């Protein structure tokens, strides 16, 4: 039973980690907490529903459409809610936070209108495939989710540290003005960051749909707040931190159920936020960020 629960926790944790990767990328480059990330993730999941259920098209196409739609949402987010605030005098550092909260509640209610409040089925034959090892059943979906999470993490780390675009991105993260002076097209880099982060949200959305067959407009808020907790736990802007934080949260949420306090399951993430911010504001893997403390 413990083994089964570990698998449950790892599956959940991997999804959390992918959601958190999107957060951490945006924060790492822009220093912005994108509160709309959860809702973009939710739209990705709904695209999966529309493709596989409503239109009865193959799952692979669902991935493509979800990535495209969430990337587009990311583009709109950057153009409408983030860029107008950048470099403007007298705009407080809280402005992007408030602006993205605005986008998040707008998208949540838009989904209500488009898709209704109800849960949407996400039926693909793929989610039925499983292997029996002893008394433990492992689903192909669970393996795929774990693999995609690891791949994304490794890919992102590699891309950031080894490729030219990644280096430019890190330069932007270090100092936007200096990067611009050195010939980096910062506008393009920022846009690319937000779009890639959003597309990762879209991938996570499809994976949740496949794993749990549960898609509702409210899932964006729940998942978004969890993702937020994870990057604070793992360290803002840290790719490894997002992965580790996701797995820790997924496993501990599963374990609290095992030990019989399922009512407090949702509280773990928030207690983690408070404790980490007070004890170690830079997070487990973050470099000490001077601006985190006064």
């Amino acid at each position, binding site marked *: *039973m413990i083994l*089964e*629960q570990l698998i*449950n*926790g790892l*599956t*959940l944790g991997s999804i959390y980690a992918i959601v958190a990767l999107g957060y951490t990328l945006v924060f790492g480059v822009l220093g912005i907490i994108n509160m709309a990330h959860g809702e973009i993730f939710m739209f990705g999941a709904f695209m999966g529903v529309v493709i596989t259920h409503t239109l009865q098209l193959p799952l692979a196409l669902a991935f493509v459409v979800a990535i495209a739609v969430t990337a587009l949402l990311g583009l709109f987010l950057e153009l409408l809610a983030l860029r107008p605030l950048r470099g403007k005098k007298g705009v407080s550092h809280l402005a992007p936070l408030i602006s993205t909260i605005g986008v998040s509640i707008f998208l949540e209610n838009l989904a*209500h209108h488009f898709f*209704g*409040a*109800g*849960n*949407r*089925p996400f*039926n693909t034959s793929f*989610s*039925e495939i499983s292997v029996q090892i002893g008394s433990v*059943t492992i*689903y192909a979906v669970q393996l795929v989710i774990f693999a995609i999470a690891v791949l994304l993490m490794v890919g992102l780390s590699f891309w950031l540290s080894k490729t030219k675009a990644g280096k430019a991105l890190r330069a932007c993260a270090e100092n936007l003005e200096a990067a611009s002076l050195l010939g980096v097209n910062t506008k393009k880099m920022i846009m690319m960051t937000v779009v890639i982060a959003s597309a990762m949200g879209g991938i996570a959305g499809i994976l*949740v749909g496949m*794993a*749990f*067959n*549960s*898609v*509702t*407009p*409210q*899932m964006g*808020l*729940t*998942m978004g707040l969890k993702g937020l907790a994870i990057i604070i736990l793992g360290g803002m802007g840290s790719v490894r931190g997002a992965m580790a934080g996701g797995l820790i949260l997924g496993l501990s*949420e*599963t374990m609290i*159920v*095992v030990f*019989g306090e*399922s*009512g407090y*399951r*949702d509280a773990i993430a928030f207690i983690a936020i408070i404790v980490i911010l007070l004890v170690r504001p830079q997070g487990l893997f973050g470099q000490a960020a001077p601006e985190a403390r006064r």
Partner: protein
Amino acid sequence: MRKSYKGLLSIFAIMALLLASACSGGNETSGDQSGDAAKDGAVSAKVGVISWLTGAGAGYGEAITNGLKLANKEIKEQGKVDIELITEDSAGKQEQALSSAQKLMNSENVSAIIGPTLSTEMKVVGPEADLNGVPIMGTSTTAAGIPQIGDYVFRDSIPESLAIPASIEKAIEKYDVKKVAILYGNDDVFTKSGYDTMKKVAEDKGLEILTTETFQKGQADYNAQLTKIKNTQPDLILCSALYNEGAVIMDQARKMGIDVPFVGGNGFNSPEVIKIAGDAADGLIVATPWFAGKDDQKVQDFVAKYKEEYGKEPDQFAAQAYDGMYLLANAIEKAGSDDRDAIRDALAETEGFEGILGEMSFDEEGDIVMEPTVLTIKEGKFQLFE
């Protein structure tokens, strides 16, 4: 100077935005004045309706107001009572429901109110209506303690304390249940209220409760709880969930290899469960006041008329509203006037009313007394559970 222009501009932009969205909204709050004009000798009365017409639960409000309108049309044709329905939207919020009630009671001077949709709204609106001496009847409020608010508060929706024991009893009979596991949503008033009843019934029947697990709104992953339940090997799972979460729980449970039957509360009872969970929904047992497949001319007539009028199958909310309208019309006819107290007294005396839900009476507290039907999902369809 330029700056102040910019400021003004932004103010105007926002105003225009608000206006634009105001105009695009549907006009659902107008009173229902269709149907024949009042005939001579008919008792006329104004009845207020508070319903959830916009937002996440607009579907419930739509079914309820459709049921009410259909019943009112028929009542007008019969010519004994002439009721004008005045509908207000509560948006599922307590504050707005209270404001709506105040508007109906004081600006519109209604003789009685039907609604609001949610038990939480009723807990705020009920005391105010009771204080003002306006009879109020919920047609979809199932939580405990609603009719106990006051003498003027009624409901024709069967409470969980009536529905759940009926379904658990039948399940015990059929499957020889000894051990149960309970799973419920602990942050929702309906599912929590359902759980309280389930726990009490399970204890009364001497069932062994193996484990009690909870989940929260917006959760997608129930595997941790279900794995735990699976390992305790129950004969039956008592699951207090709304159909949205409930269907997903059944789906994940069946995939995991849990094949015991589920007993659900009132919120679990919806054709949507089959739509969402598909084959996995087989084995759900619920007690319901409303069964569209009932072999009764009245029921079949209602289903046919409703479909003709609105192009949809009626659900329990429409059916309960339909019967609620008739119950109230009957009381107004008996009272012989639109006097609020006379209507309350007549409503309280209702006994053996034959509606599409069955034979209905009110007890001393104003709660409905009737026999629920126990249904189960078999081969993707709701069927009588025997």
